[in-house]
């Protein structure tokens, strides 16, 4: 009930390696659509490698917190019941949706998640571009609700692993669309390309893990549009492949804002990415509003004053 009998991510690692090679080779011979740039690929894969080390360093604290909450659980949920696996699948995926949404909409969580979005490429190596600081801002606390309900920690860990493995294969341009029924229910390469795009219309959309139905339910769904090809990366792209800058740049920027403007510290920490006390920067909402048909084409400060 405590230690997972298996780890889906560890089991899938050979599959990750082989499919990255397959995607590169297929693209090399023109049989699939994919772009790989050497330094970008190295940055993505080394971020993934570093995240496994960070996971080991912080995993003990996360496991201890989960066990403590589970010891105060409301119900005893058996790990052997089929209904319990159906329930944990749905509830973990719902938890992931909200984790992912706050990771984009609040800077204190964006500082970690930004790492996953900082590549200007969208390929299978991008899936492995993971944060080193995910446990530091406490987002794991969302999953403690599942332990409090009574789901065994091992069950939660396995389902989180399954979700992570599922989300790997959708990081590709090689698959354009899946069958319509699948696109309606599940997160797909098309839906997730939208999520990684920096086009105004695509910002802060498609937060799903496995089921895209959460986005449809909570009003954050955006279909990929033929007339709006995805441009990947950040609103303000990185100008460096230095791994330390890739991993920590937004933490440093947030700390700098807090030190420079202590009276507005809460806004800089808990506000949306791009928030500024003087309106000199742009949030996703401002960018989307400015890009909407008929919007005045003004600079951020001018928009603020208008």
């Amino acid at each position, binding site marked *: 009930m405590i230690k997972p009998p298996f780890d889906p991510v560890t089991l899938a690692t050979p599959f990750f390696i082989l499919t990255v090679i397959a995607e590169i080779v297929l693209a090399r011979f023109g049989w699939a659509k994919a772009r790989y740039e050497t330094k970008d*690929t190295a940055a993505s*894969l080394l971020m993934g490698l570093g995240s496994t080390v960070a996971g080991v360093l912080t995993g003990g604290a996360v496991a201890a917190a989960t066990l403590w909450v589970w010891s105060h659980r409301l119900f005893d949920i058996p790990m052997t019941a089929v209904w319990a696996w159906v329930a944990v699948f749905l509830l973990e995926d719902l938890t992931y949706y909200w984790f992912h949404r706050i990771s984009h909409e609040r800077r204190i969580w964006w500082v970690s998640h930004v790492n996953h979005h900082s590549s*200007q490429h969208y390929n299978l190596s991008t899936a492995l571009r993971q944060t080193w600081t995910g446990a530091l801002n406490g987002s794991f606390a969302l999953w403690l609700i599942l332990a409090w309900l009574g789901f065994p920690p091992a069950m939660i860990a396995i389902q989180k692993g399954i979700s992570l493995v599922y989300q790997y294969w959708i990081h590709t341009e090689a698959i354009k669309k899946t069958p319509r029924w699948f696109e309606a229910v599940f997160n797909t390469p098309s839906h997730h390309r939208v999520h990684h795009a920096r086009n105004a219309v695509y910002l802060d959309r498609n937060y799903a893990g496995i089921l895209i139905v959460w986005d449809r339910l909570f009003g954050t769904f955006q279909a990929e549009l033929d007339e709006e090809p995805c441009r990947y990366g950040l609103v*303000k792209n990185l*100008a460096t492949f230095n791994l330390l800058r890739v991993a920590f740049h*937004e933490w440093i920027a947030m700390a700098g804002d807090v030190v420079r403007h202590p009276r507005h510290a809460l806004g800089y920490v808990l506000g949306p990415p791009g928030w500024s006390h003087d309106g000199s920067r742009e949030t996703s909402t401002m960018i989307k509003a400015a890009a909407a048909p008929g919007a005045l084409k003004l600079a951020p400060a001018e928009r603020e004053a208008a």
Partner: protein
Amino acid sequence: MSPAFLLQLAGSAVAVGALVATAAWAKIAKPAPPLDDARARALLAAEFPGRTLDGLWVATDGVGALAKSGGLALVLCQVGDGWAARQIPWAQAMAASFRNGRLSVDLADVAAPRAVLTFPAWPPTDLAA
């Protein structure tokens, strides 16, 4: 960290090396021809919608550009096969160090610390007073 984890980590590091080598071998990065005036304007328009350009200088090696837009300098620099853009005060761009045909612009951003652009001269000779 257990010996098993360290072994797994070493194996993963070898795999990372192999995958990066495969990506380098494949040569499937996005095409990134040297910038010309039209392409620089298109990229700047995408990065800074609504901004009008009072002047544009494309780096002689085609891997960057700098534009004047009111009191701002819009800086574009190549990163791998992609682009990064930042805006800084025009005075900051004018004060940037220029040696041996290379303008080193401090972008004052931890995610984009510096842009190095090759120009025949700086400040530009065709800059309107």
